[in-house]
Protein backbone atom coordinates (compact mmCIF):
# COMPACT_ATOMS: atom_id res chain seq x y z
CA UNK A 1 0.00 0.00 0.00
CA UNK A 2 1.23 3.47 -0.92
CA UNK A 3 2.31 5.55 2.01
CA UNK A 4 0.10 8.28 3.44
CA UNK A 5 2.41 10.99 2.18
CA UNK A 6 2.35 9.68 -1.39
CA UNK A 7 -1.42 9.55 -1.44
CA UNK A 8 -1.69 13.03 -0.04
CA UNK A 9 0.69 14.43 -2.64
CA UNK A 10 -1.16 12.73 -5.44
CA UNK A 11 -4.48 14.04 -4.19
CA UNK A 12 -3.10 17.56 -4.05
CA UNK A 13 -1.85 17.44 -7.61
CA UNK A 14 -5.18 16.13 -8.90
CA UNK A 15 -6.95 18.86 -7.01
CA UNK A 16 -4.91 21.59 -8.62
CA UNK A 17 -5.42 20.04 -12.05
CA UNK A 18 -9.11 19.99 -11.35
CA UNK A 19 -9.05 23.68 -10.55
CA UNK A 20 -7.48 24.34 -13.93
CA UNK A 21 -9.96 22.21 -15.84
CA UNK A 22 -12.81 23.84 -13.97
CA UNK A 23 -11.56 27.30 -14.89
CA UNK A 24 -11.07 26.28 -18.50
CA UNK A 25 -14.57 24.94 -18.60
CA UNK A 26 -15.96 28.23 -17.37
CA UNK A 27 -13.93 30.17 -19.90
CA UNK A 28 -15.05 28.03 -22.81
CA UNK A 29 -18.65 28.23 -21.67
CA UNK A 30 -18.50 32.00 -21.90
CA UNK A 31 -16.70 31.86 -25.24
CA UNK A 32 -19.23 29.36 -26.51
CA UNK A 33 -22.09 31.67 -25.64
CA UNK A 34 -20.45 34.46 -27.59
CA UNK A 35 -19.60 32.26 -30.56
CA UNK A 36 -23.12 30.91 -30.61
CA UNK A 37 -24.49 34.44 -30.64
CA UNK A 38 -22.25 35.31 -33.57
CA UNK A 39 -23.28 32.21 -35.45
CA UNK A 40 -26.93 33.03 -34.98
CA UNK A 41 -26.48 36.63 -36.04
CA UNK A 42 -24.86 35.67 -39.29
CA UNK A 43 -27.25 32.85 -40.03
CA UNK A 44 -29.83 35.01 -41.81
CA UNK A 45 -27.14 36.23 -44.18
CA UNK A 46 -26.23 32.73 -45.26
CA UNK A 47 -29.79 31.55 -45.61
CA UNK A 48 -30.53 34.49 -47.85
CA UNK A 49 -27.32 34.02 -49.81
CA UNK A 50 -28.06 30.34 -50.30
CA UNK A 51 -31.59 31.05 -51.48
CA UNK A 52 -30.48 33.62 -54.00
CA UNK A 53 -27.76 31.42 -55.45
CA UNK A 54 -30.05 28.40 -55.69
CA UNK A 55 -32.76 30.43 -57.37
CA UNK A 56 -30.20 31.81 -59.77
CA UNK A 57 -28.84 28.39 -60.64
CA UNK A 58 -32.29 26.85 -60.71
CA UNK A 59 -33.41 29.33 -63.30
CA UNK A 60 -30.48 29.06 -65.62
CA UNK A 61 -30.19 25.34 -66.10
CA UNK A 62 -28.07 25.00 -69.18
CA UNK A 63 -25.55 27.53 -68.12
CA UNK A 64 -21.92 26.97 -69.04
CA UNK A 65 -19.79 28.64 -66.46
CA UNK A 66 -16.26 27.98 -65.31
CA UNK A 67 -17.35 27.88 -61.67
CA UNK A 68 -19.88 25.15 -62.41
CA UNK A 69 -17.53 22.52 -63.78
CA UNK A 70 -14.35 21.06 -62.37
CA UNK A 71 -11.03 22.45 -63.56
CA UNK A 72 -8.59 20.41 -65.63
CA UNK A 73 -6.07 19.94 -62.85
CA UNK A 74 -6.39 16.76 -60.75
CA UNK A 75 -5.25 18.75 -57.70
CA UNK A 76 -7.80 19.42 -55.03
CA UNK A 77 -7.56 22.18 -52.47
CA UNK A 78 -8.93 21.50 -49.02
CA UNK A 79 -9.49 24.25 -46.51
CA UNK A 80 -9.05 22.56 -43.14
CA UNK A 81 -10.42 24.41 -40.16
CA UNK A 82 -9.17 23.26 -36.76
CA UNK A 83 -8.11 25.07 -33.61
CA UNK A 84 -4.83 26.58 -32.49
CA UNK A 85 -5.08 25.10 -29.02
CA UNK A 86 -5.58 21.59 -27.84
CA UNK A 87 -7.49 20.17 -24.87
CA UNK A 88 -10.69 20.07 -26.83
CA UNK A 89 -11.39 16.36 -26.81
CA UNK A 90 -11.67 14.81 -30.25
CA UNK A 91 -12.33 18.11 -31.97
CA UNK A 92 -9.10 18.36 -33.95
CA UNK A 93 -8.44 14.68 -34.49
CA UNK A 94 -11.92 14.18 -35.93
CA UNK A 95 -11.23 16.71 -38.64
CA UNK A 96 -7.82 15.22 -39.37
CA UNK A 97 -9.37 11.77 -39.57
CA UNK A 98 -11.96 13.10 -41.99
CA UNK A 99 -9.11 13.95 -44.36
CA UNK A 100 -6.82 10.97 -43.79
CA UNK A 101 -9.55 8.35 -43.81
CA UNK A 102 -11.57 10.10 -46.52
CA UNK A 103 -11.79 9.11 -50.15
CA UNK A 104 -9.65 11.94 -51.41
CA UNK A 105 -6.26 10.64 -52.60
CA UNK A 106 -3.38 12.03 -50.55
CA UNK A 107 -1.15 12.91 -53.53
CA UNK A 108 -3.71 15.22 -55.09
CA UNK A 109 -4.45 17.24 -52.01
CA UNK A 110 -3.22 20.69 -51.22
CA UNK A 111 -4.07 21.76 -47.70
CA UNK A 112 -4.99 25.31 -46.81
CA UNK A 113 -4.69 25.08 -43.06
CA UNK A 114 -6.55 27.27 -40.62
CA UNK A 115 -5.60 26.15 -37.12
CA UNK A 116 -2.21 24.92 -35.95
CA UNK A 117 -3.39 21.58 -34.62
CA UNK A 118 -4.75 20.41 -37.94
CA UNK A 119 -1.79 21.80 -39.82
CA UNK A 120 0.74 19.98 -37.65
CA UNK A 121 -1.12 16.68 -37.69
CA UNK A 122 -1.54 16.72 -41.47
CA UNK A 123 2.05 17.81 -42.06
CA UNK A 124 3.20 14.87 -39.92
CA UNK A 125 1.26 12.40 -42.03
CA UNK A 126 2.84 13.80 -45.17
CA UNK A 127 0.26 16.11 -46.67
CA UNK A 128 1.25 19.15 -48.67
CA UNK A 129 0.48 22.30 -46.72
CA UNK A 130 0.02 24.98 -49.32
CA UNK A 131 -1.02 27.83 -47.09
CA UNK A 132 -1.19 28.44 -43.40
CA UNK A 133 -3.59 31.02 -42.08
CA UNK A 134 -3.83 29.84 -38.52
CA UNK A 135 -4.16 33.30 -37.02
CA UNK A 136 -7.60 33.99 -38.38
CA UNK A 137 -9.33 31.33 -36.31
CA UNK A 138 -8.64 33.41 -33.19
CA UNK A 139 -11.09 36.02 -34.34
CA UNK A 140 -12.59 35.27 -37.76
CA UNK A 141 -13.49 38.35 -39.77
CA UNK A 142 -15.38 38.50 -43.01
CA UNK A 143 -12.40 40.17 -44.66
CA UNK A 144 -10.22 37.17 -43.76
CA UNK A 145 -12.64 34.88 -45.52
CA UNK A 146 -12.64 37.19 -48.54
CA UNK A 147 -8.84 37.10 -48.72
CA UNK A 148 -8.71 33.32 -48.52
CA UNK A 149 -11.50 32.96 -51.06
CA UNK A 150 -9.76 35.24 -53.54
CA UNK A 151 -6.58 33.23 -53.21
CA UNK A 152 -8.46 30.01 -53.86
CA UNK A 153 -10.33 31.39 -56.83
CA UNK A 154 -7.11 32.73 -58.32
CA UNK A 155 -5.49 29.31 -58.18
CA UNK A 156 -8.66 27.83 -59.59
CA UNK A 157 -8.72 30.33 -62.44
CA UNK A 158 -5.03 29.72 -63.12
CA UNK A 159 -5.74 26.00 -63.43
CA UNK A 160 -3.58 25.00 -60.48
CA UNK A 161 -6.45 23.30 -58.70
CA UNK A 162 -9.48 21.57 -60.08
CA UNK A 163 -11.73 21.33 -57.08
CA UNK A 164 -12.05 23.06 -53.74
CA UNK A 165 -13.25 21.44 -50.53
CA UNK A 166 -13.88 22.71 -47.06
CA UNK A 167 -13.41 20.58 -43.94
CA UNK A 168 -14.84 22.00 -40.75
CA UNK A 169 -16.84 21.05 -37.70
CA UNK A 170 -20.49 21.96 -38.10
CA UNK A 171 -22.18 23.23 -34.97
CA UNK A 172 -25.53 21.48 -34.57
CA UNK A 173 -26.07 22.37 -30.96
CA UNK A 174 -24.03 22.71 -27.78
CA UNK A 175 -23.32 18.99 -27.51
CA UNK A 176 -23.47 17.81 -31.13
CA UNK A 177 -20.69 18.84 -33.49
CA UNK A 178 -20.26 17.16 -36.83
CA UNK A 179 -17.05 17.03 -38.82
CA UNK A 180 -18.14 17.97 -42.32
CA UNK A 181 -16.47 17.88 -45.73
CA UNK A 182 -18.10 20.29 -48.14
CA UNK A 183 -17.44 20.80 -51.83
CA UNK A 184 -17.07 24.49 -52.59
CA UNK A 185 -16.14 24.41 -56.25
CA UNK A 186 -17.48 23.46 -58.72
CA UNK A 187 -20.68 24.67 -57.16
CA UNK A 188 -23.09 21.84 -56.65
CA UNK A 189 -26.57 22.30 -55.34
CA UNK A 190 -29.01 19.62 -54.37
CA UNK A 191 -31.51 18.76 -57.11
CA UNK A 192 -34.43 18.93 -54.77
CA UNK A 193 -33.86 22.59 -54.00
CA UNK A 194 -33.84 23.51 -57.65
CA UNK A 195 -37.20 21.88 -58.19
CA UNK A 196 -38.66 23.92 -55.36
CA UNK A 197 -37.29 27.15 -56.71
CA UNK A 198 -38.95 26.86 -60.11
CA UNK A 199 -42.35 27.24 -58.52
CA UNK A 200 -41.28 30.55 -57.00
CA UNK A 201 -42.00 33.91 -58.59
CA UNK A 202 -39.99 34.69 -61.67
CA UNK A 203 -36.87 36.61 -60.79
CA UNK A 204 -35.11 38.99 -63.14
CA UNK A 205 -31.42 39.60 -63.07
CA UNK A 206 -29.53 42.70 -63.78
CA UNK A 207 -26.88 42.23 -65.13
CA UNK A 208 -27.60 39.00 -67.02
CA UNK A 209 -27.50 35.71 -65.15
CA UNK A 210 -24.02 34.63 -66.19
CA UNK A 211 -22.49 37.96 -65.23
CA UNK A 212 -24.39 37.87 -61.98
CA UNK A 213 -22.97 34.39 -61.34
CA UNK A 214 -19.48 35.69 -61.88
CA UNK A 215 -20.02 38.17 -59.05
CA UNK A 216 -22.22 36.08 -56.81
CA UNK A 217 -20.30 32.84 -56.65
CA UNK A 218 -17.18 34.34 -55.05
CA UNK A 219 -19.45 35.99 -52.49
CA UNK A 220 -21.27 32.73 -51.99
CA UNK A 221 -18.04 30.84 -51.36
CA UNK A 222 -16.74 33.56 -49.10
CA UNK A 223 -19.89 33.40 -47.05
CA UNK A 224 -19.58 29.61 -46.83
CA UNK A 225 -16.01 29.91 -45.60
CA UNK A 226 -16.93 32.62 -43.13
CA UNK A 227 -19.89 30.60 -41.89
CA UNK A 228 -17.65 27.57 -41.47
CA UNK A 229 -15.13 29.63 -39.50
CA UNK A 230 -17.77 30.91 -37.13
CA UNK A 231 -19.32 27.51 -36.65
CA UNK A 232 -15.91 25.97 -36.11
CA UNK A 233 -15.16 28.45 -33.33
CA UNK A 234 -18.45 27.60 -31.67
CA UNK A 235 -17.79 23.87 -32.05
CA UNK A 236 -14.26 24.22 -30.70
CA UNK A 237 -15.48 25.88 -27.54
CA UNK A 238 -18.34 23.44 -27.23
CA UNK A 239 -15.95 20.52 -27.56
CA UNK A 240 -13.55 22.03 -25.06
CA UNK A 241 -16.34 22.70 -22.62
CA UNK A 242 -17.43 19.07 -22.80
CA UNK A 243 -13.87 17.77 -22.52
CA UNK A 244 -13.17 19.95 -19.52
CA UNK A 245 -16.44 19.03 -17.92
CA UNK A 246 -15.67 15.33 -18.07
CA UNK A 247 -12.10 15.98 -16.92
CA UNK A 248 -13.45 17.81 -13.88
CA UNK A 249 -15.82 15.04 -12.99
CA UNK A 250 -13.11 12.42 -13.54
CA UNK A 251 -10.90 14.35 -11.16
CA UNK A 252 -13.73 14.36 -8.63
CA UNK A 253 -13.96 10.62 -8.86
CA UNK A 254 -10.23 10.13 -8.44
CA UNK A 255 -10.11 12.44 -5.45
CA UNK A 256 -12.91 10.48 -3.83
CA UNK A 257 -11.05 7.19 -4.32
CA UNK A 258 -7.82 8.67 -3.04
CA UNK A 259 -9.53 10.09 0.06
CA UNK A 260 -10.81 6.62 0.82
CA UNK A 261 -7.34 5.14 0.38
CA UNK A 262 -5.81 7.90 2.46
CA UNK A 263 -8.22 7.38 5.36
CA UNK A 264 -7.68 3.64 5.23
CA UNK A 265 -3.92 4.13 5.33
CA UNK A 266 -4.25 6.56 8.24
CA UNK A 267 -6.43 4.19 10.22
CA UNK A 268 -4.02 1.35 9.42
CA UNK A 269 -1.08 3.29 10.76
CA UNK A 270 -2.96 4.25 13.97
CA UNK A 271 -3.97 0.64 14.55
CA UNK A 272 -0.41 -0.44 13.96
CA UNK A 273 0.98 2.10 16.44
CA UNK A 274 -1.56 1.08 19.07
CA UNK A 275 -0.70 -2.59 18.66
CA UNK A 276 2.98 -1.75 19.03
CA UNK A 277 2.41 0.28 22.19
CA UNK A 278 0.26 -2.41 23.77
CA UNK A 279 2.74 -5.09 22.82
CA UNK A 280 5.57 -2.98 24.32
CA UNK A 281 3.67 -2.38 27.57
CA UNK A 282 2.98 -6.09 27.92
CA UNK A 283 6.60 -6.94 27.40
CA UNK A 284 7.65 -4.64 30.27
CA UNK A 285 5.11 -5.93 32.78
Amino acid at each position, binding site marked *: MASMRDIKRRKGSIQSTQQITKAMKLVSTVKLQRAKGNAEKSKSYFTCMYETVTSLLGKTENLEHRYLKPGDSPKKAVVVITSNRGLAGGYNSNIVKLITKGELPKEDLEIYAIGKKGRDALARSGYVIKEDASDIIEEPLYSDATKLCNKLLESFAAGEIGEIYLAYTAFKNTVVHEPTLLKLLPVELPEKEEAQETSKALMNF*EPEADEALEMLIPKYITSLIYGALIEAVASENGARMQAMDSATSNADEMIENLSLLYNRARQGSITQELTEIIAGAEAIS
Partner: protein
Amino acid sequence: MAEEKSFSLKIITPDRVFFEDQVEMVEFNTTEGEIGVYKNHIPLTVIVKPGVLTITMENGEKFAALHSGFAEILPDKITILADVIEWPEEIDVDRATSAKERAEARLQEKTEDTDVERAEIALRRALTRIEVLK
Protein backbone atom coordinates in the same frame (compact mmCIF):
# COMPACT_ATOMS: atom_id res chain seq x y z
CA MET B 1 -52.09 56.12 -46.61
CA ALA B 2 -48.54 55.79 -45.47
CA GLU B 3 -49.19 52.17 -44.68
CA GLU B 4 -50.03 51.42 -48.27
CA LYS B 5 -46.89 52.95 -49.68
CA SER B 6 -44.47 51.28 -47.36
CA PHE B 7 -42.71 47.96 -47.77
CA SER B 8 -40.19 46.11 -45.70
CA LEU B 9 -36.47 46.59 -46.10
CA LYS B 10 -33.94 44.29 -44.60
CA ILE B 11 -30.22 44.89 -44.78
CA ILE B 12 -28.05 42.02 -43.64
CA THR B 13 -24.31 41.84 -43.25
CA PRO B 14 -22.33 38.73 -42.35
CA ASP B 15 -22.16 39.71 -38.70
CA ARG B 16 -25.39 41.53 -37.96
CA VAL B 17 -28.78 42.61 -39.16
CA PHE B 18 -27.96 46.17 -40.11
CA PHE B 19 -31.44 47.54 -40.70
CA GLU B 20 -34.96 46.16 -40.66
CA ASP B 21 -38.05 48.32 -40.90
CA GLN B 22 -40.90 49.61 -43.06
CA VAL B 23 -39.72 52.15 -45.62
CA GLU B 24 -41.17 54.11 -48.54
CA MET B 25 -38.28 54.27 -50.93
CA VAL B 26 -34.75 52.96 -51.26
CA GLU B 27 -32.07 54.37 -53.55
CA PHE B 28 -28.65 52.94 -54.23
CA ASN B 29 -25.98 52.33 -56.87
CA THR B 30 -25.90 49.14 -58.92
CA THR B 31 -23.60 47.89 -61.66
CA GLU B 32 -26.22 49.03 -64.15
CA GLY B 33 -26.61 52.51 -62.69
CA GLU B 34 -28.49 54.18 -59.92
CA ILE B 35 -31.77 52.66 -58.90
CA GLY B 36 -34.68 53.91 -56.82
CA VAL B 37 -37.20 51.38 -55.62
CA TYR B 38 -40.80 51.96 -54.54
CA LYS B 39 -43.35 49.41 -53.50
CA ASN B 40 -44.49 46.88 -56.14
CA HIS B 41 -41.28 46.81 -58.08
CA ILE B 42 -40.85 43.81 -60.40
CA PRO B 43 -38.77 41.00 -58.89
CA LEU B 44 -35.14 41.82 -59.56
CA THR B 45 -31.72 40.85 -58.32
CA VAL B 46 -28.98 43.42 -58.74
CA ILE B 47 -25.32 43.68 -57.85
CA VAL B 48 -24.42 46.64 -55.69
CA LYS B 49 -21.78 49.17 -56.62
CA PRO B 50 -20.22 51.38 -53.95
CA GLY B 51 -22.37 54.38 -53.29
CA VAL B 52 -24.71 56.12 -50.93
CA LEU B 53 -27.77 54.22 -49.82
CA THR B 54 -30.74 56.46 -49.15
CA ILE B 55 -33.66 55.14 -47.20
CA THR B 56 -36.81 57.26 -47.26
CA MET B 57 -39.10 56.57 -44.36
CA GLU B 58 -42.30 58.11 -43.17
CA ASN B 59 -40.43 60.26 -40.70
CA GLY B 60 -37.44 61.34 -42.74
CA GLU B 61 -34.43 60.04 -44.58
CA LYS B 62 -31.52 57.89 -43.58
CA PHE B 63 -28.17 57.51 -45.28
CA ALA B 64 -25.55 54.81 -45.22
CA ALA B 65 -22.36 53.98 -47.08
CA LEU B 66 -22.93 50.78 -49.02
CA HIS B 67 -19.74 49.28 -50.41
CA SER B 68 -20.50 45.92 -51.88
CA GLY B 69 -23.06 43.16 -51.97
CA PHE B 70 -26.25 42.49 -53.82
CA ALA B 71 -29.94 43.16 -53.46
CA GLU B 72 -33.00 41.06 -53.99
CA ILE B 73 -36.05 43.12 -54.82
CA LEU B 74 -39.55 41.68 -54.49
CA PRO B 75 -42.85 43.61 -54.79
CA ASP B 76 -43.32 43.95 -51.04
CA LYS B 77 -39.83 43.32 -49.72
CA ILE B 78 -36.22 44.22 -50.38
CA THR B 79 -33.33 42.28 -48.98
CA ILE B 80 -29.86 43.75 -49.32
CA LEU B 81 -27.00 41.40 -48.58
CA ALA B 82 -24.09 43.71 -47.94
CA ASP B 83 -20.49 42.71 -47.34
CA VAL B 84 -19.70 46.14 -46.00
CA ILE B 85 -22.12 48.88 -45.00
CA GLU B 86 -21.81 51.70 -42.49
CA TRP B 87 -23.95 54.37 -40.86
CA PRO B 88 -22.48 57.86 -41.04
CA GLU B 89 -21.86 57.76 -37.28
CA GLU B 90 -19.57 54.79 -37.72
CA ILE B 91 -17.31 56.46 -40.24
CA ASP B 92 -14.03 58.02 -39.21
CA VAL B 93 -13.69 61.21 -41.30
CA ASP B 94 -9.97 61.56 -40.85
CA ARG B 95 -9.34 57.99 -41.81
CA ALA B 96 -11.51 58.26 -44.89
CA THR B 97 -9.82 61.49 -45.96
CA SER B 98 -6.34 60.10 -45.52
CA ALA B 99 -7.33 56.91 -47.32
CA LYS B 100 -8.59 59.00 -50.19
CA GLU B 101 -5.34 60.95 -50.38
CA ARG B 102 -3.28 57.79 -50.21
CA ALA B 103 -5.24 56.13 -52.98
CA GLU B 104 -5.02 59.22 -55.17
CA ALA B 105 -1.29 59.46 -54.65
CA ARG B 106 -0.87 55.83 -55.53
CA LEU B 107 -2.85 56.24 -58.73
CA GLN B 108 -0.84 59.27 -59.74
CA GLU B 109 2.62 57.88 -59.17
CA LYS B 110 1.82 54.72 -61.01
CA THR B 111 4.66 52.26 -61.29
CA GLU B 112 4.63 48.80 -62.75
CA ASP B 113 3.77 47.02 -59.57
CA THR B 114 1.02 49.38 -58.47
CA ASP B 115 -2.17 47.47 -57.96
CA VAL B 116 -4.34 49.92 -59.86
CA GLU B 117 -7.54 48.01 -59.28
CA ARG B 118 -7.01 47.92 -55.55
CA ALA B 119 -6.17 51.59 -55.37
CA GLU B 120 -9.30 52.43 -57.33
CA ILE B 121 -11.46 50.37 -55.04
CA ALA B 122 -9.90 52.04 -52.03
CA LEU B 123 -10.49 55.45 -53.56
CA ARG B 124 -14.10 54.67 -54.34
CA ARG B 125 -14.65 53.42 -50.84
CA ALA B 126 -13.15 56.54 -49.30
CA LEU B 127 -15.19 58.79 -51.59
CA THR B 128 -18.40 57.01 -50.67
CA ARG B 129 -17.64 57.42 -47.01
CA ILE B 130 -16.95 61.12 -47.38
CA GLU B 131 -20.08 61.61 -49.48
CA VAL B 132 -22.30 59.98 -46.89
CA LEU B 133 -21.02 62.30 -44.22
CA LYS B 134 -22.11 65.37 -46.17
